[in-house]
């Protein structure tokens, strides 16, 4: 009754006392842990969502509101098909659309230019939605001028131009000057590509790109009452072999796939962070319960109901969760800003929207994720201690009688290990996205189950320990043994974190090594010329035919190998077509040198066959000897697959063919890149080429060494993301250790006081804490190392499935050693405070135990 009557005020007083009183450090450590795990989850969620939203918005804005479109990918749909589609039964209107990426000279940024038929009736209606707020004095004037462009207001400001100004750009045909005929307000299409967008008349853009007679897609508006399914089938017949009929946004693209992969990683991390935070919450609250044993017993004796005591503990947990979640959300917002550049750089690698910044925002979903991680982990950790606290009675408040030592347990038989290994073997067949966390969970459970036997083993080796560490060696591990459950949980959590970071490091090293090997083998002795920055061929800039001819004729150039990159639809998905001059490639070993069957495959390419990247072969289950059907302006064409090559070109993969075969089926303007070879030092030849091309084409010249440097820089982005995530994970691990050691110090206070009265010096107690921490770290590093090596395999498979990166496994031993050293240092640093705390234990406290 007393408890019920006074529950609220007494509960508040006791709650405040527990949160701010004797448990201040525990409260702080728990709040930091919850905040760190919340920050980890929300920062990755916000940054990946920002990139995803940019992609979605761009796709939606570019697609317009036409329910159907006829497309053949970047390769283009013949303009003549517009007429056929427009006259098909059930079609209200049909209009061609074209897009390309140019470079704005003034701002040195890419701009996505959308070409639409401004006069087409149906498309005009679709465009009207985007034109609200567009400052156009005379719409007909836009159509009338072949250089008229409508620029987003943001990009205009960036480029320092306004209405009626000239805008210098670089396109596939070289430098051009456009005329700003209007400004797009920040709505609709103007928000695509984060505002780096311009609109032109489709026919003007055709001329600018040198793609007369082709559009990227035909947007179709059906007549009222017409079934979309029926119309889709009808248009499919009309466009058969030349293009595909689709509902906009239906087919997955590389960016969507990439971001989906990143978001899957977020879920895994959120789960891992929550588990660690729950452990910390459990450790903090169970220690608090131990310290308040007498208090709870007295409260029960004076009339507090079990539920009232449980509410006190859960109240503590809620307070920790509320503060930790709020701090974590704020920290996550800041961290997301750091992660976004790395994420966009990774996405850019596949999609080519370089330097386009994604906007970060806190959504209801972010808050829900933060709350799920923060509150769920805190409450999950509070259930056990709350149940324990309700079982305290006054008899428990008496001075502690000596506790019985736990009976020694035997080392687990080979059965336990065999079961774990068997479970991992069984997991081999399941998707890597599920396998990675499952292996982590099995490893964590195994790590936890190994703790007790390992401590028993150490206990049997005390003689050796006392020799190795005179003074306190024989006590090594006794603190950990005093809290076997907490120790097991900490080892499991830290092993998981070490495994995760190690897996990430293996991933990073494998990515860097594979990229370096891939790039390093590609251009021996050659100089690559691009109109885009190296490693960003997807930006779509072309080297004009005249420039190609000039380079071929430049003094000192002995041979040239052109490349043309475009995108086509294959089985409803956008895949890259990479056309090389096969014979020149073979002459200079530019293409996958040393790869199995390289020579035969390149010879087959010269005969009109195609090769596919390993990612493509894996994704579409295509092998040598199979046939691929690709749409061309003159109808569908089947190509025989001559072999596979390695590539890092994204989740959809690449189809390789000879440039002559490409030219036989598709129109082409210039080259995406070319390689030229010289007899001697390429530097004077580059200078000559620069002079010959008047240096106005904005070309990039890259030799193999420079390309390697670029590859390293790109791999650095990947590293930066992993470094951020890894650092947070290590922080969590450090907090976990500090929490456990503080808990041990609190739980063992009587024992430590006893050691002091028996003659242990303060430094010896501190050394004991540090030695226990080191023991914990070494065990966790060893288990986490094995687990990390195991988990690296599904992580590499995830890279292949989600990102299209088939990587050779590579261990960077120096970085792995650094990781071990960092974990050890983090653990010892985390142990510093508990060690300082036990140093202050006075032998005189013995009187409080007797």
């Amino acid at each position, binding site marked *: 009754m007393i408890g019920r009557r006074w529950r609220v005020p007494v509960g508040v007083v006791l709650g405040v006392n527990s949160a701010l009183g004797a448990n201040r450090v525990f409260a702080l450590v728990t709040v930091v842990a919850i905040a760190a795990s919340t920050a980890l989850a929300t920062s990755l969620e916000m940054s990946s969502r920002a990139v995803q939203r940019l992609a979605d918005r761009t796709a939606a804005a570019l697609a317009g509101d036409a329910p159907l479109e006829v497309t053949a990918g970047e390769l283009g749909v013949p303009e003549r098909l517009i007429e056929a589609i427009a006259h098909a039964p059930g079609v209200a209107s049909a209009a061609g659309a074209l897009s390309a990426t140019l470079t704005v000279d003034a701002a040195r940024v890419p701009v996505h230019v959308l070409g639409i038929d401004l006069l087409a009736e149906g498309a005009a209606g679709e465009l009207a939605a985007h034109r609200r707020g567009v400052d156009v004095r005379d719409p007909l004037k836009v159509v009338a001028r072949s250089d008229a462009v409508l620029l987003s207001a943001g990009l205009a400001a960036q480029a320092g131009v306004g209405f009626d100004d000239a805008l210098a750009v670089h396109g596939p045909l070289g430098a051009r000057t456009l005329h700003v005929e209007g400004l797009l307000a920040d709505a609709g299409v103007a928000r695509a590509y984060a505002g780096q967008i311009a609109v032109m008349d489709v026919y003007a853009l055709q001329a600018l790109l040198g793609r007369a007679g082709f559009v990227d897609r035909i947007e179709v508006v059906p007549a009222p009452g017409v079934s979309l399914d029926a119309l889709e089938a009808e248009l499919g017949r009309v466009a058969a072999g030349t293009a595909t009929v689709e509902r906009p946004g239906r087919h997955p693209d590389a960016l969507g796939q990439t971001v989906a992969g990143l978001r899957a990683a977020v879920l895994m991390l959120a789960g891992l962070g929550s588990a660690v935070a729950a452990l910390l919450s459990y450790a903090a609250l169970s220690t608090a319960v131990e310290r308040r044993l007498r208090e709870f017993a007295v409260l029960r004796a004076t009339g507090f109901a079990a539920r009232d005591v449980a509410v006190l503990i859960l109240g503590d947990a809620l307070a920790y969760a509320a503060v930790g979640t709020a701090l974590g959300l704020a920290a996550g917002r800041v961290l997301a800003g750091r992660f976004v550049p790395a994420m966009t750089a990774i996405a850019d690698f596949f999609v080519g929207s370089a330097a386009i910044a994604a906007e970060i925002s806190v959504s209801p979903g972010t808050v829900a994720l933060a709350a799920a991680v923060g509150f769920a982990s805190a409450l999950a950790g509070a259930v056990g201690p709350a149940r324990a606290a309700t079982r305290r009675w006054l008899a428990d408040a008496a001075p502690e009688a000596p506790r019985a030592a736990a009976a020694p347990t035997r080392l687990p038989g080979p059965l336990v290990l065999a079961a774990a290994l068997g479970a991992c073997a069984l997991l081999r067949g399941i998707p890597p996205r599920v396998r990675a966390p499952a292996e982590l969970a099995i490893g964590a459970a195994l790590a936890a189950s190994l703790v007790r036997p390992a401590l028993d083993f150490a206990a049997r080796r005390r003689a050796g320990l006392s020799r190795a560490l005179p003074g306190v060696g024989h006590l090594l591990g006794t603190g950990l043994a005093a809290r076997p459950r907490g120790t097991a949980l900490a080892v499991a959590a830290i092993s998981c974190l070490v495994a995760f970071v190690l897996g990430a490091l293996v991933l990073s090293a494998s990515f860097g090594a594979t990229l370096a090997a891939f790039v390093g083998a590609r251009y021996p002795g050659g100089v690559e010329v691009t109109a885009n920055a190296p490693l960003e061929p997807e930006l779509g800039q072309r080297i004009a035919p005249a420039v190609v001819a000039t380079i071929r004729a430049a003094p000192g150039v002995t041979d040239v190998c052109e490349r043309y990159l475009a995108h086509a639809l294959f089985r409803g998905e956008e895949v890259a077509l990479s056309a090389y001059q096969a014979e020149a490639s073979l002459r200079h070993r530019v293409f996958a040198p040393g790869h199995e069957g390289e020579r035969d495959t390149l010879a087959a390419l010269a005969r009109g066959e195609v090769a596919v990247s390993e990612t493509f072969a894996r994704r579409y289950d295509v092998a040598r000897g199979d046939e691929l059907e690709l749409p061309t302006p003159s109808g569908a064409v089947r190509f025989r697959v001559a072999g596979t090559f390695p590539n890092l070109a994204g989740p959809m993969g690449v189809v390789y063919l000879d440039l002559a075969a490409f030219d036989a089926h598709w129109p082409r303007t210039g080259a995406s890149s070319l390689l030229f070879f010289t007899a001697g030092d390429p530097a004077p030849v580059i200078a000559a080429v620069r002079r010959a091309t008047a240096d106005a084409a904005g070309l990039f010249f890259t030799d193999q060494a420079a390309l390697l440097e670029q590859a390293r820089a790109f791999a650095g982005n990947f590293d930066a993301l992993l470094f951020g995530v890894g650092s947070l994970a290590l922080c969590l691990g450090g907090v976990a250790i500090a929490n456990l050691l503080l808990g041990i110090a609190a739980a063992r206070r009587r024992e430590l006081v*006893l050691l002091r009265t*028996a003659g242990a*010096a303060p430094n010896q107690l501190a050394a004991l804490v540090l030695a226990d921490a080191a023991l914990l770290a070494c065990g966790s590093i060893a288990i986490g190392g094995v687990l990390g090596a195991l988990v690296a395999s599904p992580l590499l498979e995830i890279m292949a499935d989600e990102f299209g990166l088939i990587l050779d496994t590579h261990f960077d031993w120096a970085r792995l050693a650094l990781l071990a050293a960092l974990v050890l240092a983090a653990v010892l640093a985390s142990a510093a405070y508990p060690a300082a705390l036990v140093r202050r234990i006075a032998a*005189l406290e013995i009187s409080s135990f007797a």
Partner: protein
Amino acid sequence: MSADPRAPAVVAEDVCVTYGAGDSGVRALRALSLVVPRAQFVVVRGRSGSGKTTLLHVVAGLRRPDTGRVAVGGTELSRLSEGESARFRRRHIGLVYQFFNLVPTLSVEHNVALPLLLDGWTIPRVRGRVEALLARLGLPGHGARAAGELSGGQMQRVAIARALVAEPVLVLADEPTGSLDSETGRSVLALFRELCDERGTAFVMMTHDLDAAAFADRVVELRDGALERDGAGARAATAAS
């Protein structure tokens, strides 16, 4: 920091200890002076709050007196630093408590050897001494057992063995029979007596137990922090008569 073999086990002169300050301060020891020669078994009696435990803490070096001086085996404790005090305690003072205070996670052997191990000895080096001591205290072959598996009387014997293992000048015991039944308690007192005679170690025992005087050379009674009575124990009286 080594003990002088000719010096008395304990010399306490004008020791004052006050808890708190001002009007609410409690004077636990009031100018107390006490000399305990070697090989003497002294029983200190007194009601709760008489200052017994404070005296034990001061003599063990766990607390510094506000005024006065305390020397054990000729070494003045107030001159020692925290670390030196810990080292002196593990080498020259043994402590026995009412609740035994064994380390539950250690075996009997390691509990007994604790002061020596903390002093840097290795387990193989102390093993012989520990086994002999356990045998002397009636616990032969118990070294490998877990401390928590023993009975109360056995635990107290292990605690006594730990207090003696470093061959100290002085053993301080705080109500060592308080948690034991009367028969076991008497056997512990008899053991103290034997060890005092055998080893020349001084024993100072704080207790309420009236039977303890029968085993002691000397009985000291405290009242409100001052020495009220200092006389011969029953054993000394018997010997004298």
